[in-house]
């Protein structure tokens, strides 16, 4: 039953480009980016209980590293994206190594700071990044085709989700949840809680770098909006509204919010306010999100 459902979703995902016009195909590609972002953020926040505010910043690290390598060094985007992923992972390891042992609040504060600083650097180093004007960078394919990009994003997202699923079902995943549920009990049963959290944070940061690199080369224009706190909030809202701590939650949240934001595009600046209010109500009254609500209704029957 579950397998048939997954196969159905997979089939629909493959067929999508043949039914959507260019505009909605673009929306589908962006949704896949957000699926990667929200799911990897969920890996730390939902599974180990640490709130990072640098997830969008790490996507920015990926996008700017790969974009600038391609533009100034002629490096192929495929290699550039790998470099960006590694750099985001290394920065994650450094930041996490500094503050995770001090507790969750310190990680949140430091990642918030990192994200502000990255935005300031990108905005000010205009000769390299062209500041808020945005930097034009080459695409992944020599011939531009949204269908190609869609399949690239789909392949990476699926690989990403399979990898995450495996990680969560392994002993490491068990350690993640043990750390979330009861830190003291986890550490007395021999789990190095700091190491587990650091590992989750590093891998999740690297995943954001990967997603950001792909995103940059798809848009072919990178701006300080990618590592902004507004973007960070969108990712957080997707995970919270979909359901943190569940595997499907952030995926559903990302797709739902991205498509919804296309419908409410006419309201322009209000959409952050609107998503904020929805996310606040969900976080306050249904902390396990849409997935949690659905399960509750299902069980009551």
């Amino acid at each position: 039953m579950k397998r048939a459902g997954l196969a159905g979703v997979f089939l629909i995902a493959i067929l999508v480009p043949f039914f959507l016009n260019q505009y909605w195909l673009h929306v589908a590609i962006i949704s896949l980016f957000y699926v990667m972002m929200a799911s990897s953020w969920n890996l730390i926040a939902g599974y180990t209980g640490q709130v990072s505010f640098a997830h969008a910043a790490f996507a920015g690290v990926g996008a700017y590293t790969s974009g600038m390598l391609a533009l100034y060094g002629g490096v192929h985007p495929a290699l550039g994206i790998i470099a960006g992923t590694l750099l985001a992972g290394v920065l994650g390891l450094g930041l996490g190594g500094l503050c995770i042992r001090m507790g969750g609040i310190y990680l949140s504060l430091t990642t918030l700071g990192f994200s502000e600083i990255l935005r300031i650097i990108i905005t000010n180093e205009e000769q390299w990044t062209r500041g808020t004007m945005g930097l034009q960078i080459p695409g992944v394919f020599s011939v531009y085709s949204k269908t190609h990009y869609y399949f690239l994003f789909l392949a990476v997202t699926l690989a990403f989700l399979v990898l995450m699923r495996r990680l969560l079902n392994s002993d490491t995943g068990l350690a993640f949840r043990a750390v979330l549920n009861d830190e003291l009990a986890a550490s007395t049963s021999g789990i190095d809680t700091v190491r587990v959290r650091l590992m989750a944070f590093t891998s999740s940061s690297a995943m954001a770098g990967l997603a950001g690199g792909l995103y940059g080369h798809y848009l072919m224009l990178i701006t300080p909006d990618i590592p902004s706190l507004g973007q960070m909030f969108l990712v957080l809202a997707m995970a919270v509204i979909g359901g943190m701590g569940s595997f499907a939650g952030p995926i559903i949240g990302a797709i739902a919010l991205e498509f919804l934001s296309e419908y409410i595009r006419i309201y322009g600046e209000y959409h952050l306010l609107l998503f904020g209010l929805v996310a606040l109500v969900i976080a306050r009254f249904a902390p396990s999100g849409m997935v949690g609500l659905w399960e509750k209704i299902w069980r009551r029957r």
Partner: protein
Amino acid sequence: MSEFLMFLTNGLVMGGINAISALGVSLVVGIMRVINFAHGEMYIFGGYLSYQLAVGAGIPPVLSMLCSVAAVFLGGLAIEKWLIRPTYGDEMYSLIITFILSIILQNAALLIFGPYPVKPPSLVFGATNIFGLFHYGNQRLLSLALAAGIIGAIMYLVRRTWFGKSVRAISQDREMAAMLGVDHLKVNMISFGLGCALAASAGAIIAPIFPVTPSGSGAVSLTAFVVVVLGGMGSLKGCIVGGVILGVLENLGAAYISTDYRHIFGFIILIGVLVLRPWGLFGKRI
């Protein structure tokens, strides 16, 4: 030399503002283990409300400052009651909720007040000659005096009053305090309101000198957080010393190194503290 002294004095004025803003964060962290990511928005609202009341409604500047701080205090009480209280015991959810709140308030401020910086009227005018070295704006001197007065009042409140005793009891041992009959719900609510009011007073005091904008709230929050980590999480003395250190370093850095990178000095200090002395100057060593 006199130029250097002036930058130093600027740093001291900003230091006083940093200190009261950070006191608001530290008070709440010490008692509730909650960081309010909407702290910067409270500061911005303090400045904007004071401007609106003084310029829009024509209320005398002093009264408009007091009213704006009181309004933010009441707002803080409501936020604690409806949004923070249900998250007790779950540190992660309080971080997420206050972050969402900061995005909502920031966008609401953009919508209501617009993106342009506003400057409430000054309370005093003119300048004073400081020891024959340089002329310094009276409004800035008054800001420093007000900040010092507020710091003194908070210290008195925490060290000498019944409220302060309850605050310290809860910071030290929440269960024990509850057992001995301290109403921690009430103390939490008042402390959170007070934290917001301190941010608002910092905003209202500095706005006549440095205008406030909704987009500036992130930097304000960050400055307060850096001060709290530098001084030691939960230490009130640390806020004052840390606030002045950061104010002076940022002003000298902006004057002699780079204005664009003013806020980077704070981040460098944050990283430095985490590397060298993660518990901060006056914090308890873990």
